[in-house]
């Protein structure tokens, strides 16, 4: 690894720390400082005075701000987000149980987004100004404008209720949940492969189809447009024309030379997509009652569980910061101009 690259990675890692710190601080202020008393907002007007007081005490809101902040930060560093309200279960433990479901949904959705996005984006860029180009552009705009949960509901209605081909909710059919001895990663599809339990695998995949298509397709709307824009930039470069002048096949030019160059900015876009993915997961999980972190957040809003809400948000923030770090490092390896 060249000194240039080592420096680049070192700087990127160091830069992540302030980023996470800022994110976590923003979450802290959002949940405490903006106008209105969080206790009232959470418990709604009906709450009596001592209910408000006990809520504030439980959430530690009655402490002076800087103490709250200090305890909050030390908690974040130790990944200890306190106890879930009314459940006396450490928030982190709840996150650990529900998060694998979100990861599994995210992985399959991302596969759909990336494959649809890159293929159609590259195709549209290659046949610029053709009917296909405009067709793809307009349909990707419509796709992105579809509210995720509405698409989910529609798919549920058509494929679930009407045609009955696919399960419409939950991760597995009742009674299929693997026991602790089989759970390795918490991702059913992966565990099923590792344990060669094809029945579980089939059931898990069936349950995954509708939600990941919903989330995957909607995000593919943006990803196609971004891939197309990057591909267009690349295809206009002189080295593509120079390649054509050397007799290189058009397909090779676009899908090998073009895509290899466009792939670098696309990787960084993947980093951004993860953030959109997690946001989308909240809605998808609620629609398909998918037992992931997203649905947990929504449920805990109904239960007015301030601690879990805060814990989940911070956890998401750390995930996003981690992913963007990995993506940036990948960027360094992919782009020879940084590697050497």
């Amino acid at each position, binding site marked *: 690894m060249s000194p240039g690259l080592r420096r680049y990675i070192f700087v990127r890692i160091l830069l992540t720390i302030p980023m996470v710190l800022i994110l976590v601080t923003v*979450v802290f202020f959002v949940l405490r400082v903006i106008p209105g008393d969080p206790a009232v907002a959470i418990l709604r007007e009906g709450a009596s005075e001592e209910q408000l007081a006990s809520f504030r005490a439980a959430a530690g809101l009655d402490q002076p701000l800087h103490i709250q902040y200090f305890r909050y930060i030390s908690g974040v560093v130790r990944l200890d987000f306190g106890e879930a309200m009314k459940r006396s279960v450490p928030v982190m433990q709840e996150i650990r149980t529900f998060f694998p479901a979100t990861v599994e949904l995210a992985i399959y959705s991302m596969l759909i987004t990336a494959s649809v996005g890159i293929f159609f984006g590259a195709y549209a860029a290659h046949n610029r100004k053709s009917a296909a180009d405009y067709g793809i552009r307009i349909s990707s705009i419509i796709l992105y404008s579809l509210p995720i*949960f509405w698409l989910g*509901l529609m798919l549920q209605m058509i494929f679930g209720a009407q045609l009955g081909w696919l399960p419409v909710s939950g991760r597995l059919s009742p009674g299929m949940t693997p026991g602790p001895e089989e759970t390795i990663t918490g991702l059913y599809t992966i565990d099923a492969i590792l344990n060669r339990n094809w029945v579980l695998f089939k059931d898990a995949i069936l349950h995954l189809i509708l939600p990941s298509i919903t989330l995957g397709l909607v995000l593919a709307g943006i990803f196609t447009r971004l891939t197309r824009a990057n591909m*267009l930039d690349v295809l206009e470069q002189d080295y593509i024309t120079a390649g054509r002048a050397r007799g290189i096949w058009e397909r090779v030019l676009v899908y090998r030379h073009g895509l290899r160059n466009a792939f670098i900015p696309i990787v960084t876009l993947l980093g951004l997509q993860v*953030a959109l993915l997690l946001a989308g997961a909240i809605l998808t999980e*609620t629609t398909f009652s998918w037992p992931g972190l997203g649905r947990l*957040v929504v449920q805990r*809003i109904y239960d007015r569980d301030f601690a879990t809400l805060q814990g989940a948000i911070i956890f998401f923030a750390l995930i996003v910061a981690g992913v963007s770090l990995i993506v940036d490092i990948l960027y360094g390896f992919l782009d020879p101009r940084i590697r050497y």
Partner: protein
Amino acid sequence: MNISSPNTTAQTSKLVDENIGFVRRIWRGRIWYGTEWYITVIGGLILLGVTMMTILAPVLAPYDPNEFIGAPFTPPGRGQQALVSRTGENPVPSASEITDEVVGVQRNQNGVNLAKELNYEYERYQNQEELLTALENGEVDLIFINQELVPEVLGAYPNLGVVDEKLGRSYRLGTDNLGRDISSRIVWGARTILGVALASALLSSFVGIPLGLISGFAGGKVDRTLSLVMDSIYSFPGLLLAIALAAMLGPGLLNVAVAISVIYIPTFYRVVRGQVLSIKESLYVDAARSLGAKSSNILRRYIFPNVIPSVVVVFSLNIADAIITAAGLAFIGLGLPPDIPDWGYDLSKGHSFLVAGQWWMITFPGIMITLVAAGFSLFGEGLSEILNPRLVK
């Protein structure tokens, strides 16, 4: 040094600078921009439609969106009643002559409201069988049944005859679980969704644009700290931040708008800062500085006018995002208070009735949200291609 494709600047200027009317210039843009023009115009038409719907809501909406006007779950196009009596013993030639006759109606059906409206004497029965047997054995002389059931009823009860048809209202898009007219809620909902989206876009631009200008123009430490903060928020899942904010602020038009606007401040910031940086480096700003122009003058006459086009594009795309996010918030119960007609709210309510087959409660609001959001995106995308191609990454 020279431009490879032939230099058509002089010729194209003929197309542009004749002082023709504004509309004709837009129409002439068709040949100038080709399909980008069509995309922008389609987007523009959708926007126009939504704004018309907002302004003319009282005229367009047949009923008050919150009033329980019809029977719950009336399918689209349905709602009208038929007056049925025993054949041969028809006490009244048509509905208008009913004076003191008692009319049988079925609970939770539109017949009840119709009877009340025409202030007939009416008798309520639990279900259709009880209603029909009541008519048959003379408890009641006339009954209201849903117009679409007439063929089936007459088939089953040959001894009944239709006195009058197509009475009362039909609901173009049907009614929801509380019997409210969905088409009215759609029309009135436009005003809400546009209000929230516009308010949030304005809020985020009021904060994002000035910060972008300062950061781009000032540079140095200010620029580095600001861009670090903005980049971290930019990479954060927007909806989650909005959820946290909405949960804290509670329901309310402005609260939801604020919750959504926070996510898009970084978008405005990044685009404006990028533009300012590129313009600041341009030769004409150097020329202005060498003329001795003050910084404020440069900002006002050289930088800002050239930033506006990109801001308009981001504004339009931002509204599209805000619409979808607002619908998302409403779906998970953090939307507006129930008394404000809101498409997202209707969608979240419709969710639970889907299994029972009442598809129309969620289909129409969903289509409207997608249409309006797509409209703003089309308008923004087409505009960005026309103003400065491939600006909005």
